[in-house]
């Protein structure tokens, strides 16, 4: 199984304080990898290293090796905009731009310099379909994206990410602000797009991780305690800490 992203000995410092203590984690192509762990365990911080979101935080230093398709993500030659086109991101709170559904989804395509209107139209439709929101918005594509429900907004945001056909999609608690039905729709769409995309998802919801992911990584206190197939991790974890966390003994 080819890995889209490989990381070795990733350490992240806020000033002098080391927050990630040497993470080795790979993300295999066309698989959903779930990052679980209690608050403050470093899972989101680590996820944000993968598309250099932490660059925006002052005083942050990152060491170690992080590679996308074998190329160093932190190389001075890396074009961060191009990187983020390949490594898309979906956040906890739906964050559509305050303009139409169509323009939201087309935004990344136009940014990438695509002018062919027909191609844009096709891509918008495909992406909205992949994000399982097409049926709900197809007659209102010109409506402001903010006028839709939270669950629909989040799926529009996912469509916006899918439209630029990223190699991997990072999701930071994408369903925690949504009701269970909307969350279920997102889980289902992730399974549906799995043959075309690779997903890394941070989630507090262990059931969600067990239901949808192929692999799970358990973070605790800035360390990667255990990683493996979701089946193995949930049914027979090797580490006691993993078992304790899954059983709700802490976190």
């Amino acid at each position, binding site marked *: 199984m080819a890995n889209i992203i490989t990381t070795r000995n990733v350490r992240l410092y806020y000033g002098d304080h080391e927050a990630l203590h040497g993470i080795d984690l790979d993300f295999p192509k066309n698989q959903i990898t779930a990052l679980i762990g209690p608050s403050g365990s470093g899972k989101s911080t680590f996820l944000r290293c993968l598309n250099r979101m932490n660059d925006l935080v002052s005083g942050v230093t990152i060491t170690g090796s992080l590679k996308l398709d074998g190329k160093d993500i932190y190389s001075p030659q890396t074009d961060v905009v191009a990187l983020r086109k390949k490594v898309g991101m979906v956040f906890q709170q739906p964050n559509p731009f305050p303009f139409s559904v169509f323009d939201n989804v087309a935004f990344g395509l136009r940014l990438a310099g695509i002018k062919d209107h027909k191609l844009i139209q096709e891509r918008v439709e495909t992406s909205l379909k992949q994000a399982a929101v097409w049926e709900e918005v197809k007659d209102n594509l010109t409506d402001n994206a903010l006028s839709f429900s939270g669950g629909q907004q989040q799926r529009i945001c996912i469509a916006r990410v899918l439209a630029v056909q990223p190699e991997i999609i990072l999701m930071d608690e994408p369903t925690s602000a949504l009701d269970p039905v909307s969350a279920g729709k997102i889980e289902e769409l992730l399974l549906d797009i799995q043959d075309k995309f690779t997903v890394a998802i941070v989630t507090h919801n262990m*059931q969600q991780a*067990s*239901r*949808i992911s192929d692999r799970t990584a358990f973070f605790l206190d800035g360390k990667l305690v255990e990683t493996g197939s979701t089946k193995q991790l*949930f*049914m027979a974890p090797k580490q006691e800490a993993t078992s304790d966390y899954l059983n709700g003994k802490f976190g």
Partner: protein
Amino acid sequence: MRGIFEDELKKLHGKFTEMGINVSEAIYRASKSFIDHDKLLAQQVIDHDEQINEEEIKLEDQALMLIALQQPVATDFRRIIIVLKASSDLERIGDHAVGIARESIQLKGEHRIEEIENEIGEMTNNVRSMLEEVLDAYVKEDEMGAKKIASANQKIDEDYAEVREKTIKMMKQDSKVITGSASYLMVASYLERIGDHIGNIAEWVVYNETGHLAELTPDHHPEEK
């Protein structure tokens, strides 16, 4: 999420039915090998049992995975639990078929009692049609059908009591038939136990539908009469 769960569950139930058909075949062949004194066929039943055991392990593994990863509740939970429970009944039925096949291999009786052998053949047919009906009720989630099977099991118990009584009578009359008759008793008792396991499966079908654990047939021990 329904999609994945439903698909997996459907596969699981499909495999269960397949296992049921294999087990039914094993009963048929074991009993035939006994009546025909066909040691080769008996050996095939014994060899084939390993495959049935493997099928059960695979079923269990998948069911456990669904429980651990999908964390089903309510009706979904019951639908998985019954696969786990009923597949172990099927596996035990397979073991009893092996027991019958072992009797066929050990069989040394020149002195056969046709009447008893006919009754064993009849019991086998009854047990197999019960198994087929229970598999059908399982697939159709047919509570009423399952309840009928539980009462059919009473008939098997009665058949067993009858075979036992007749065999013992013959043994008393003629010591030459004792060796062969011991096997008749064993085989009939295996068939009786198979009936009980089928009754258990019927109870799981009812549980699936109602959520209530019910004893459909009160424990019936004809040998204690």
